[in-house]
């Protein structure tokens, strides 16, 4: 190969003064970086993905991991990433497969929005002693109520209400399938959401029977491959989500390689062991907004109109118009998945270049639905790159009803965002199906960590609301006046419908 070897991504070293040759790094690394030879530990830095499993379990803090130990000649255009992608494709002639969310240094809109707080005139509220209403209902709200006065003075509601999901905090966990993540990871998330009183998505991987105890907190997904979908599955879920697109890879399907289709994954997806699970780009029965309506209604009819149906789309140029179509399709919620959304595997070119930020998409969807007088027809769920409670508060101000978190919940279970989920070697037992690795993830302790995270964010959200003099999440929703743009350009501020700082 005339290109030769390329520099290490990470350089691993062990401080011999601190190391006691206990071998925990050897046991914990699932990528084959460490090897015990007599009393020595040999290091192969080339295999390192910086998942930090070794670091986290070294009892002596003896391990150091350095990123990009060898410099290329620096160049603003011909970055290291660009050059290495060319080397890779020159060698293989293939599509580059990558993991996690968008890895390009685009500006983060969330970080250029600031929140408001009360001073003097409108007093702030202390959530410690005042009730703060964070409970959220996902689903259709009637545009008007018809009431009938009864002779005894009581009032009867004539309007037929459609089913809503009640969540105790506007934070849910998005769809990560069994197959993409391990069963232990899914169980940990399920335990957490059921204790909190929120929901999680199954992804397009079916519903494993060990998740049945948590099914009333699960949103079952129907995607283009229809894996694991039958009437029992639809009836088990608290809601059904049609996945049209995904922020990490808008416009393309998914593909779970046969190596990851083990006996259990095969059983929940209802496909033979070892076969590729291919989710095509479009749904075969959806070629128009009318067809989407047909599937929404088909799912409602199958479950006797007892379940809310969500439609998830990737945030793209025309999200607002698409969402307006979805709002008229009988769907109960639209999920907008921004271009920073994570994934187990996506072509690098899609992950990094296709789609738009969730902040802009949610703001324009909310504005369009209000303009058309149909905002009450659907809830808006924002996902893709929600990193902290401030992001939750900001996206709600931009019009979202609730958020889905994905990567954040995985980080709460130890994920270091190394971005090599597609290798199936996750040392943390999250993005892998290897029994010896999955065993590392204890569902109970990890569920507590995920619960802690959501609990912490919920407390922060209540504090942020209190500081802004708001005691109900309803009053924060779409409340752009509580946001200001800091160093955002005029065009973007117009889309977001926020003023600049100082204005």
């Amino acid at each position: 190969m005339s290109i030769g070897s390329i520099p290490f991504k990470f350089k691993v070293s062990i401080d011999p003064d601190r190391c006691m040759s206990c071998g925990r790094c050897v046991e914990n690394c699932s990528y084959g970086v460490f090897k015990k030879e007599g009393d020595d530990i040999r290091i192969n830095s080339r295999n390192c993905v910086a998942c930090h499993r070794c670091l986290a379990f070294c009892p002596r803090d003896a391990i150091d991991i350095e990123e990009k130990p060898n410099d290329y000649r620096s160049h603003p255009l011909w970055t290291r990433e660009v050059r290495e992608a060319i080397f890779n494709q020159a060698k293989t002639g293939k599509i580059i497969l990558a993991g996690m969310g968008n890895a390009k240094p685009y500006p983060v809109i969330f970080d250029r929005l600031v929140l408001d707080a009360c001073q003097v005139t409108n007093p702030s509220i202390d959530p410690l002693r005042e009730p703060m209403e964070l409970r959220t209902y996902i689903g259709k709200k009637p545009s008007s109520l018809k009431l009938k006065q009864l002779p005894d003075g009581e009032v009867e509601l004539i309007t037929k209400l459609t089913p809503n999901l009640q969540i105790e905090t506007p934070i849910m966990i998005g769809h990560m399938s069994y197959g993409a993540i391990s069963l232990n990871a899914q169980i940990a998330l399920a335990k957490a959401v059921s204790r909190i009183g929120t929901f999680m998505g199954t992804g397009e991987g079916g519903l494993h029977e060990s998740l049945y105890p948590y099914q009333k907190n699960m949103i079952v997904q129907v995607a283009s491959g229809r894996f694991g979908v039958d009437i029992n599955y639809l009836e088990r879920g608290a809601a059904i989500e049609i996945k049209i697109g995904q922020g990490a890879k808008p416009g393309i399907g998914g593909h779970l390689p046969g190596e990851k289709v083990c006996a259990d994954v095969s059983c929940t997806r209802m496909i033979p062991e070892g076969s590729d699970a291919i989710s095509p780009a479009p749904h075969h029965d959806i070629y128009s907004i009318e067809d989407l309506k047909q599937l929404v209604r088909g799912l409602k009819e199958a479950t006797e109109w007892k379940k809310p149906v969500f439609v998830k789309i990737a945030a793209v140029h025309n999200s607002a118009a698409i969402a307006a179509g979805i709002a008229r399709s009988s769907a109960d919620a639209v999920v907008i998945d921004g271009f920073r959304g994570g994934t187990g595997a996506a072509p690098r070119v899609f992950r990094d270049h296709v789609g738009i930020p969730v902040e802009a998409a949610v703001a324009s969807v909310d504005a369009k639905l209000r303009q058309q007088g149909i905002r009450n027809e659907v809830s808006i769920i924002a996902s893709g790159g929600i990193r902290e409670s401030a992001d939750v508060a900001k996206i709600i101000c931009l019009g979202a009803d609730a958020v889905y978190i994905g990567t954040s919940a995985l980080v709460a279970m130890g994920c270091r965002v190394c971005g090599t989920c597609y290798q199936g070697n996750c040392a943390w037992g999250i993005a892998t199906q290897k029994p010896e690795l999955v065993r590392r993830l204890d569902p109970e302790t990890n569920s507590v960590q995920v619960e802690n995270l959501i609990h912490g964010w919920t407390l922060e959200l209540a504090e942020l609301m209190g500081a802004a003099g708001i005691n109900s999440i309803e009053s924060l929703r779409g409340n752009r006046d509580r946001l200001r743009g800091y160093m955002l350009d005029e065009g973007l501020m117009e889309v977001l419908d926020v003023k600049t700082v100082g204005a």
Partner: protein
Amino acid sequence: MTTVRIDAHRLHYTPLNQKIRAAIADGATEIIIDNVLGQRFIGDGVRGDDVTITVNGVPGGDLGMFMSGPTIIVHGNADHAPGNTMDKGKIIIHGSAGDAVAHSMRGGRVYVRDNIGYRGGIHMKQYMEKRPILVVGGAARAFLGEYMAGGLLIVLGLNGVTPISERGVGSGIHGGEILVRGPVDEQHLGVGAKQTPATEEQKAMIKPIIEDFAKQFNLDPAPLLVSDYTRISPASARPFANKYTWE
């Protein structure tokens, strides 16, 4: 056997399905629906292995969607996607059907006496004992068996029609098989599909299915059983296996 008759004249699909469900809950095993005119989702998500639903008229799209158990007999044509993501049971159509017939079907059988539209049997899949079967008496249009992941699709070309005369057959197929009576022009095969003449063993495998199909429509199975068949199957079970390189 308890029989229930439902008049579907000017009846929306939701109350129609409610009547079907109520009849099954009351123990009906024979449900006859008259005056069906375009109602979608008939039998959607309905269970009942011993239930037969007779549809007199032309049902709308997604007939028997997610259905698990019953038999639906249609005296008329059907719109698109009968048997969509169906789990178990039978749909017998005395006429033709639209596009995406048996889309993502997981189990059970769909028999169409005459012709079907585009993308028939798309992404059918099988698992363990569940092996969906789609039999088409006449002809199928383009992209038959696209993305097929499992199951069996048979096209018979009865009454002198050419069973396959359009492109994209089995494009992206990675499981299951398509048997077509007579030869198939190589140029009509999609990417990832290959064809071979069906062996005697393969013909023996479809014999009971063809006999059952013929019985449903009062046909003589003999000429169908002596014909030659072409078998279309995946060129690879892993069509995307060599597409990617790791970052």
